[in-house]
């Protein structure tokens, strides 16, 4: 199995606190790789580093063998990396299908002058993007809500809308930050199905998720972070049994208990 995304000793410090410390991991096409760990372990920070929102203090990110460390997110998107967000980042004033059409942006080729004049090639491109967007909405089960204003959709629907929007960029790797957070069991089931479907299409998936049952069920590989460091990495069964992982989770649980007492 070839590697699509690779981080090498990736680190970032915020004023003396090392939020992500020497993290190395690799994801292959079609693989579902989950990052878990207690709150504050640096999962979302790691995502922000990989997706270009933060600049690493040290370490490297490679995408399909090419070094992409420090590239801005829009350039990473053009190279096939997109993501969803833990706290939703939706274009609320646009319809659901238009949200996904923005995801088609990197494939749109017409220029701004032809946009002003609404030349026939722009109309053709609009139709094409709409078709792609509708297909992605259908893929995540939102086809019925295509014309609704995004601001009026339910939380669970918006979570899937973000995935559809990211998929419209035709990524090679998709970073999903807690896609099932705040979702009811039916919606979680739906997200599970979507993730499997996407991985089956050969897209690599890096997942941050708190729903352990979901993580254990769908992951090919799990990396456990604790205080910014990689604690353990391996298959779900191995990670579940690892005494260090149990200690880390129980440790935080224990300290929360202690705080309450």
């Amino acid at each position, binding site marked *: 199995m070839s590697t699509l995304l690779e981080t090498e000793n990736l680190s970032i410090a915020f004023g003396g606190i090392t939020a992500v410390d020497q993290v190395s991991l690799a994801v292959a096409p079609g693989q579902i790789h989950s990052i878990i760990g207690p709150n504050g372990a640096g999962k979302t920070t790691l995502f922000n580093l990989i*997706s270009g*929102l933060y600049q690493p203090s040290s370490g490297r990110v490679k995408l399909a063998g090419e070094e992409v460390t420090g590239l*801005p*997110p*829009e350039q*990473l*998107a*053009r190279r096939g990396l*997109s*993501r969803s*967000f833990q706290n939703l*980042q*939706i*274009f*609320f*004033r*646009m319809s659901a299908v*238009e*949200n996904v*059409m*923005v*995801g*088609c*942006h*990197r494939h*749109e080729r*017409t220029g*701004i002058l032809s*946009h*002003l*004049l*609404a030349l026939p090639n*722009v109309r053709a*491109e*609009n139709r094409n*993007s709409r078709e792609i967007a509708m297909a992605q909405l259908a893929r995540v089960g939102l086809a019925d809500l295509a014309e609704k204003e995004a601001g009026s959709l339910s939380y669970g629907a918006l979570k899937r809308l*973000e995935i559809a*929007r*990211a998929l*419209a*960029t035709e990524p090679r790797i998709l970073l999903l930050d807690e896609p099932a957070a705040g979702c009811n069991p039916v919606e979680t089931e739906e997200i599970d199905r979507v993730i499997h479907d996407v991985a089956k299409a050969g897209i690599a998936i890096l997942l941050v998720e708190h729903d352990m049952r979901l993580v254990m069920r769908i992951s090919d590989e799990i990396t456990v972070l604790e205080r910014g460091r990689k604690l353990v990495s391996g298959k779900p069964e191995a990670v579940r049994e690892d005494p260090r992982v149990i200690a880390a989770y129980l440790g935080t649980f224990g300290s929360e208990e202690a705080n309450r007492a």
Partner: protein
Amino acid sequence: MERLLRNRWALVVALALILAALPLVFPSNYYFRVAALVNIFALAAIGLNLLMGYAGQVSLGHAGFMGIGAYAVAIGASRFGLNGAVAMLAGAAMAGLLAFLVGRPILRLKGHYLAVATLGLGLLISMVLTNEAGWTGGPDGMAVPRLELFGTRLRGPDTWYMITAGALVLGVILALNLIESPTGRAMRAIHDSEIAARVVGVDVAAYKLKIFVISAVYASIAGSLMAFLNGHITPDGTAGFLRSVELVTMVVLGGLGSVLGAIVGAAMLVILPQALTIFHEYEHLLLGLIIMASMILLPRGVIPSLLARLRGGGA
């Protein structure tokens, strides 16, 4: 009704019909003049609304670009012997170029900081127009030679009403085209979440700059038309800070993110001061009250709030 307002071609046709029918009920040249001013300010407000209402970036210096357009036709015709139409296009190119050069550094700023930076730009343009008296006639302004097209001199408010109406319809069509294009989706996306736009591949800085340039060109063309209509221009009347504030007020009052709203806002702010003169010294008081009442009762601007009411969701 709501569908009608949302269909872009219905809006264009309705606007064209109204603009064509108005001369039938205008009793005097005075009405043509005021209506021409509405068209001109509506054009500038539509451009500014692309920037503010769609891309979400404020500009408190947009009258500066109107000033460039106005002085381009005045100076171009009187000192360089350019045809007025050519001078107007040259002014638009200069305004666009200035926006391009200044836009890159200032559009990195957000919110209040961007507001103050654009305010500075507007003041700067206004100062240059006031101080370069050798070219511009200084604070007293300068005369604008009449536009000559195909051997006829264009004069009279009725003629300029028709020309500005044509320009407005054209401006509306171009704006609506843009909004429904890949560029339009990118700029609307930027307004709601820059970060989400970036992770799907939208170059946010490049799009802000493009929209800034387009809105500057709209303002410049409006400024040129105003110069032709009035025949005399001053720095304050074209590029002054109060003009910039007026443009922002039109956009917000009529409705951010609504092309029709920009036209309604422009009509209100041009017509009301004229209509309220019958109240003599209470004129400004009433204008202020009406603006406040409009914002309180229609908080998202006239058109978006009315649309929301029609939809039954309240304002």
